């Protein structure tokens, strides 16, 4: 129980968050000091976000926090909601996750920065604009002020968000999953920025499930599991000598720590693409690309998001037409034996259907036996009780395993895993990957593994295709923005 001595600290003592169903977060005690950032690790649903929201004072309706949260000596929890909100943007500022969604799609970036000066700090329109330019310059977006979010890359959006927190220049900065959805290169960029904040003497409180980020930031690390703080201490201690089993698992789950998979001797080619080319929006994604995936082999396609990895996979699967070039699939194999694993598991299931129903229909469609399904479910270590839930009610890891089971029911010869683990918690990512490898070994399945995680590819793939076109960013972001908006994408 180290209660803050320094008036500038953030100290959380005995924090619990409870909803109608009872406590969700129990007795969490942490503190953040200048130059000593705090990083909370944990899988989604572990309650780490709730802790952040409790500090922010933005808990969802129906949830209440108890305990003490002292910032600059005052107990935040004691203050009424209205007063706490006054603190937003002044004493506490938030670095949102997936900033390309957190920025107003209909407003130019400069405006979104300037309005903090204008309406939070009550500066003149003129001055606000100038300061906004400075803030943008600080993060290297000097010329981006007139852009709309959908015209910017994820990295630019992320930097814009940081510029906004600069504008509010508050004592405490809460970074909520700041690297979610970013690939390795951008992730490191964000970490750098956060380090600068720390150096600038701000209190930085980061929420993430990415051990690498936690390690890079240093300071204190807390590990949360099921609403409890199971491990807490200086970064190097926690990372080098984890005490709690979950922490161990978490660290072990980082692909960087895995040992490399021994390449199997490849069987007959299952899918072959020759001289493939694809352009989108008049700009070529790739040209003259030859690729071959053989039975029992894992071929990784690596590159930043938007470089055309997924498109390549879809071309090989026959979901998208190739601009030019030819695709050959193993003769005599029915199309249903070429399957795909999706990046976002919930989006890959009909939202209104229970898992059981989905699988039963599939079994029925292809005249298989339910026993086979049950066997697979058991093999993928999935509980029977999950069958009667809807996709929205199951954790991403479990759901991804169901997706795998669903595909395996049809004895696929080829599986296109499209960022299949990028949205999963490290632990469940590891589980899924291990299962996948097992199946490859046993069934000689050919896998096309699309990922932006170089480490992962490096560890499990026999071969890797590198597609590197950062320039491809703009269009992809534009597309994201569009699909979230009104107009259809392509």
């Amino acid at each position, binding site marked *: 129980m180290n209660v803050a001595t320094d008036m500038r600290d953030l100290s959380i003592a005995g924090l619990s968050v409870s909803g109608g169903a009872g406590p969700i977060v129990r007795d969490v005690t942490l503190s953040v000091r200048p130059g000593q950032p705090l990083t909370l690790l944990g899988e989604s649903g572990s309650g780490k976000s709730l802790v952040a929201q409790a500090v*922010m004072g*933005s808990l969802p309706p129906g949830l209440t926090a108890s305990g003490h949260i002292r910032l600059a000596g005052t107990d935040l929890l004691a203050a009424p909601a209205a007063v706490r*909100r*006054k*603190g*937003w*943007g*002044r004493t506490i*500022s*938030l670095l*949102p996750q*997936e900033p390309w*969604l*957190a*920025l*107003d*799609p*209909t*407003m130019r970036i400069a405006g979104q920065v300037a*309005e*903090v000066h204008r*309406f*939070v700090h009550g500066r003149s329109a003129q001055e606000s604009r100038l300061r906004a330019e400075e803030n943008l310059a600080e993060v290297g977006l000097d010329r981006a002020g007139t852009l*709309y979010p*959908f*015209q910017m890359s994820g990295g630019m959006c992320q930097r814009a968000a940081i510029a*906004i927190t600069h504008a*509010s220049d508050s004592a405490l900065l809460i970074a909520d999953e700041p690297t979610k959805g970013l690939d390795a290169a951008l992730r490191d960029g964000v970490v750098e920025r956060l380090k600068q904040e720390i150096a600038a003497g701000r209190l930085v409180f980061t929420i993430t499930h990415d051990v690498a980020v936690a390690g890079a930031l240093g300071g204190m690390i807390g590990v949360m599991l099921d609403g409890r703080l199971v491990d807490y201490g200086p970064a190097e201690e926690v990372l080098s000598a984890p005490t709690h089993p979950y922490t161990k698992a978490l660290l072990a789950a980082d692909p960087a720590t895995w040992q490399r998979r021994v390449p199997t001797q490849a069987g007959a080619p299952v899918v072959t693409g020759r001289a493939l080319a694809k352009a989108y929006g008049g700009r070529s994604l790739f040209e003259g690309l030859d690729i071959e995936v053989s039975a029992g082999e894992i071929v990784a396609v690596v590159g930043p998001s938007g470089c055309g990895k997924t498109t390549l996979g879809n071309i090989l699967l026959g979901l998208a037409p190739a601009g030019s070039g030819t695709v050959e699939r193993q003769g005599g194999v029915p199309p249903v034996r070429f399957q795909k694993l999706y990046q976002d598991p919930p989006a890959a299931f009909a939202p209104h259907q229970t898992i059981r129903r989905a699988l039963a229909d599939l079994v029925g469609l292809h005249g298989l036996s339910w026993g086979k399904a049950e066997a697979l479910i058991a093999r993928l270590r999935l509980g029977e009780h999950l069958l009667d839930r809807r996709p929205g009610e199951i954790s991403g890891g479990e759901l991804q395993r169901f997706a795998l089971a669903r595909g395996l029911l049809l004895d696929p010869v080829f599986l296109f895993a499209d960022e299949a683990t990028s949205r999963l918690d490290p632990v469940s990512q590891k589980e899924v990957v291990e299962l996948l490898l097992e199946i490859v070994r046993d069934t000689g399945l050919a896998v096309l593994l699309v990922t932006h995680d170089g480490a992962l590819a490096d560890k499990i793939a026999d071969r890797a295709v590198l597609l590197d076109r950062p320039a491809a960013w703009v269009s992809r972001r*534009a597309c994201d*923005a*569009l699909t979230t*908006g*009104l*107009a259809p994408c392509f």
Partner: protein
Amino acid sequence: MRRFLLARLAQAGLVALVVGTLSFALMRALPGDAAMRIAAGRYGPDAMTGQAADKVRLELGLDRPWPAQFLDWLETLARLDLGHSLVTGAPVIEELKVQLGASLWLAAAALLISLAIGPVAGVLAGLRPTGWADRLGLAASVSLRAVPPFVLGLVLILVFAIWLGWLPPAGFGTARDLVLPALTLALGLAAVSSRVTRDAVAAVARAPHFAFARHKGLPEAVVVRRHGLRNAAIPVVSYLGLQAIYLVEGVVVVESLFAYPGIGHALVHAIVERDIPMVQGTALAMGLIFVAVTACVDAASAWLDPRLRSAR
């Protein structure tokens, strides 16, 4: 932009042709003796007789084959002339000027008032879904939606003209004549637009960028104004477009209740009295208005939503 305009013009032309032809065909296909209808329209039941009808038939050459009559229409149309009303004998364009003009004024006023009611109520409801404002809004909208406009109009007349004596129950020409019929229509519109707005706002309020705007520390009013309204307006605008069209033509009862010289009233008479040029002219005008309105809506949405701009 230029291509956009050209496309619109093409669409306008197409609509004009199709609508005109369709209305002509339908009118021709109608049962009953047109001359009789026209005569009744002209001379009223007291003076109307079979002989009168014969005179009309002769005068208008109604017994000519229909292709000839249609070609006439096309030819005059090519000269941007809509012909003359068979009943009043006045040029259709003149009639439209008065009646369509009046309707447009009425529609504009109604839309304005409904904007002051519907979206406002919608925003209040949408910011706190299932709050009291939302429930109240739902109740109001449902009851307004389910009461025939003429009943609504009558109630308004009783309140504002008889009890309060502020406004005239009927008539046209001055602003005060416009208020009651416009209000009657506006309430009906607001009933729906408030719900559309509510859903739009509720959707925006759920969006992460809205939450972030709050977390930035902006005052609630600013959050709503700068990050709520514009975004919510995007779907609402395209809905209001449709409403505007419904307005211009869907008001016949209000017109007759308030003795307001609108296009709906004219259309009813024209059809009952088999006044083909009038029907065609009206349909044509309505079609063009539709094209114009949709063009405006597109422009407005593009202005509201930069993503659409870049998409075009």
